[in-house]
């Protein structure tokens, strides 16, 4: 009932067009038979998709990204779970403050995070190493995991924990046998969000790694800086398709 004008629809259409056009436009470029980024004229080729399977470059980076993403997401989820359960169980007077404090880093500009982590890793000698990169990613994604887990905990009945303790479970037993099983979907969501965020993290990654450790976003970045390699278009298309699939899967679940 908000106005009968068609102006809103016009803007919505235009906004959608602007948002999707570049993502769609990149698709034909990935099928060019040429060695440089260009629009294919009549001839199509999958050579740039095959190039992704080069074990020394793209495949290596995909491996690095996957390794970093798995390590960071597991550590971030564990940390976030410990933090959230701690707050949930003890309900300290400063609970709201602590939660706010943990969520606040979400607003730190990526460049500031990057400089800060670069600075820190340089001092402890972990610059351009897998552990250093994992550490950076964990710092970046913990707040998002905390949001997911706190959400799950807020729907959990407090009496469950009391009942478990009442039935003779120790605190640890009640955490592992009552609380954690009941928030498993929240934990999974937190882990999945962390995995995706680490996998696609670029702004910090570019600063703190790049010579020995090259993640997928970093390799895309390098390729664009050096020359417009059509493999970049191919890998982008794959990632767009993957994102679409994830969205469709989530839609079909609900």
């Amino acid at each position, binding site marked *: 009932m908000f*106005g009968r004008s068609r102006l809103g629809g016009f803007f919505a259409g235009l906004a959608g067009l602007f*948002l999707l056009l570049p993502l769609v436009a990149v698709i034909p470029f990935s099928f060019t038979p040429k060695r440089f980024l260009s629009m294919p004229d009549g001839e199509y080729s999958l050579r740039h998709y095959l190039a992704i399977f080069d074990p020394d470059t793209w495949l290596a980076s995909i491996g690095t990204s996957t390794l970093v993403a798995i390590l960071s997401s597991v550590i971030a989820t564990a940390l976030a779970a410990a933090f959230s359960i701690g707050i949930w169980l003890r309900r300290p007077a400063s609970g709201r403050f602590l939660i706010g404090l943990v969520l606040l880093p979400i607003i730190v500009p990526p460049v500031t995070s*990057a400089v800060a*982590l670069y*600075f820190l890793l340089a001092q402890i000698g972990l610059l351009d190493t897998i552990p250093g990169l994992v550490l950076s990613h964990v710092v970046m994604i913990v707040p998002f995991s905390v949001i997911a887990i706190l959400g799950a905990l807020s729907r959990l009945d407090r009496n469950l924990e009391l009942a478990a303790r009442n039935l003779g479970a120790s605190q640890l037993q009640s955490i592992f046998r009552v609380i954690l099983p009941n928030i498993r979907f929240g934990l999974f969501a937190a882990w999945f969000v962390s995995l995706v965020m680490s996998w*696609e993290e670029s702004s910090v990654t570019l600063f703190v790694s790049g010579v020995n450790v090259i993640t997928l976003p970093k390799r895309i970045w390098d390729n664009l800086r050096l020359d417009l390699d059509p493999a970049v278009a191919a890998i982008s298309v794959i990632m*767009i398709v993957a994102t679409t699939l994830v969205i469709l899967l989530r839609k079909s679940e609900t």
Partner: protein
Amino acid sequence: MSTARLRDLRVFPGFGLLSVGCVVFLYAPIVVLAIYSFNDGRSVTRWAGFSLRWYQTVFANQNIQTAAMNSVVIAVIAASVATVFALGAAIATVNGKKGGGEGAYVVLTFPLMVPEIVTAVASLVFFVAVGISLGFATILIAHIVFCIPFAYLPIKARLESMDATLPSAAADLYASPAKGFLRITLPLLVPGLVSGWLLAFIISLDDFIITALVAGPGATTLPLHIYGMLRLGMTPEVNAISTLMLAASTVLVLISGLLGQAGRKH
């Protein structure tokens, strides 16, 4: 239930420590960064007393000023244009809930799901394909586009929380659609518009990846400039400018949050 029993239940110091440790872990890099921005020495590792000299250096640096100015101009224009689009889109999608709304929502928020580097690649390829030469204009266009989803979400949320019969009531009281929109819908949307604009502004101001790829030679923004400085080596000046950016973001987000809360109370 007695407090003694409750306390007994909560005794497990490990988790409290973990919670605090988690906070420390998150803040250590930023706190260290901020502290060393006040270092009197040239070194970024050895403390030589408190000083504001690096902030003075930042404010005296012509290049930083130019880059910061570019950033602000781009962010203001991008946020404003994106907010207009987002407003139209929000009205259209909340209006047309039957069928079209869901699809439109997915389209408008899709870019939030796609990895930023992919959006950057797509934008770059698009500009090259269309033949727009990279520079200030391409940065601006790219920023407008990726700001739309961020401006859209708060406006949509505000619109959805609004009583949908209000425009009907305005029409019932002889207001034309345009007048009803200006007198009723728009004033009630102001908190959503402001927080949408602020969010878009911050996102534009802070963006690095997309900006770097579509900037081309010459055009620069503050994040690009900081990246350039960092490549030349770590100096306390970098610390100072990064800390300033953090402060700006924090203030803007706090304003946005407060406005959001005021809006909800309404």
